[in-house]
């Protein structure tokens, strides 16, 4: 299977076709990609099926995307950051 790459906070990480952003981040050893508004606590994937919204991440400039649902497309620019209140 041939892979591609995406960037996470400027760092290049591999991703496989069809893999979600969360799966690509986990594969690269990244388990947290957001900090909470009040406590500044790290968060990553929790429910894994789009229900809990813990895995929110910025993808190609779009804030608050659920990393566990969105497929990682070649060249995606993924950024961590503080929670945005939409």
């Amino acid at each position: 299977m041939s892979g591609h790459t995406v960037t996470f906070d400027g760092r290049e990480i591999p991703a496989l076709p069809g893999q979600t952003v969360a799966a690509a981040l986990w594969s690269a050893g990244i388990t947290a990609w957001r900090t909470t508004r009040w406590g500044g606590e790290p968060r990553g994937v929790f429910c894994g099926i789009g229900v809990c919204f813990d895995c929110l991440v910025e993808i190609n400039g779009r804030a608050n995307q659920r990393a566990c649902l969105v497929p990682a497309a070649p060249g995606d620019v993924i950024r961590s950051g503080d929670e945005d209140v939409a």
Partner: protein
Amino acid sequence: MTPEAPPRTLAVIGAGPAGLAAALAAAQRDLRVTLIDSAPQAGGQFYRRPAAALGARRPQALHHQWRTWERLRDGLAEQIAAGGITHLTEHHVWFVERVEGEGGFAVQALIGPEQQESVALRADAVLLATGGYEKVLPFPGWTLPGVVTAGGAQAMLKGGLVLPGRTAVVAGTGPLLMPVAAGLAGAGAEVAALVESADPKAFARHAATLAAHPDKLAEAARYGVQLLRHRVRLTPRHTVVQAHGKASLEAVTIAALDPAGRVRPGTERRFRCDTLAVGHGMLPHTDLAEGLGCRVDGLNVAVDAEQRTDVPGVWAAGEATGIGGAALSLAEGHIAGRSAAARLRGRTPDPRAWAAAAKSRTKAREFAAAISPVYAPPAHWAEQLRDDTLVCRCEEVPASAVREAVDELGATDARSVKLLTRAGMGWCQGRMCSAAVAGLAGCEERSARRPFARPVPLGVLAQTPDEDEPTPSS
């Protein structure tokens, strides 16, 4: 086929076991079915598979009942080719409403991974197969990265071929824990502990019911063998008391439970791990049914023997009508699809035509009823919460705030706690904390009556109704 009459249309929401069985049963009886699902491919959570492009050589290694899946998958492909089923992937349904005057229903769905645009799909009837999601009760450290739901760990494994971590602890209660532990071990993780709060002796009280389900026993035995092969031992009557770590999970402490469901002091044991897969059972997705005004009994959409809700033209099947597993979902979906096919033509269906599915439904419900009291979370789980343990993950509401709302401000129901503390007002709309809040408030867990099934951009709500999308009935 009746060329003189326009084809009757059924929108099936959800493409898991119930939705697939329903869509096939209805399409094979000449309904025009639109199968609407949020995932990029059919199967739901139970038959979740790696994306085709991932090129997994043996995706069935992570699944059981693979042959059933193949039958559903091939049936779906045939019906799509024949025009009986239109399969809309990556359609996130946020609302279903009755169309005033014209009759029928409008299904509102956000499209694509972006979920910024909404389409409205019309159908003569609706079949809700919205499935369920996992319930997790809080404990100190449960918000640390590396702590995932048991189903979430399985989803990462099944869908992304990603091993969540190298050393895992699987904990909680319920029939999902064994397959998750077996899946993780089979994929190469070290499963340091499989911690189940239930007492295996409790199953003895239901021996007669269990004996009537040799297939279920065989399934459990298969997982048992897989776990033995990987030297994973089940630790019953234990619970997680804390997850440890700073930036992410580093270790988990478990402890033994006494017969009353309290932690026995001095029995704590600590396991180093980078993943904790935890779950305390399942909850049904009932938002769309409630939006339509369907009656909900406790947490489940109420249905009759034909899987009809009390709203004419709306059927429901699968976990949404009560948690019971894939076999029950398949049976309910099949019955619902056949009932819809007959009723939409003005015919009263003969239940004898689906006697086999009805028998399977009865057996599966009996089994679910027998095991659900056994797989109950520890009775005194709330005593493990420290004051600073977050109960609501989204709004970061600690247990102390919920306790204050209950003990000092007099809240006796989840809604009052929510208004006093913001628990349940965040992104997930209480899906993750409602069980915990109900437990702390000492009230019965109820469905939350959310106006929409998922977050909707304000721009979508501001739009005038748009009917120019392709509709199954046009």
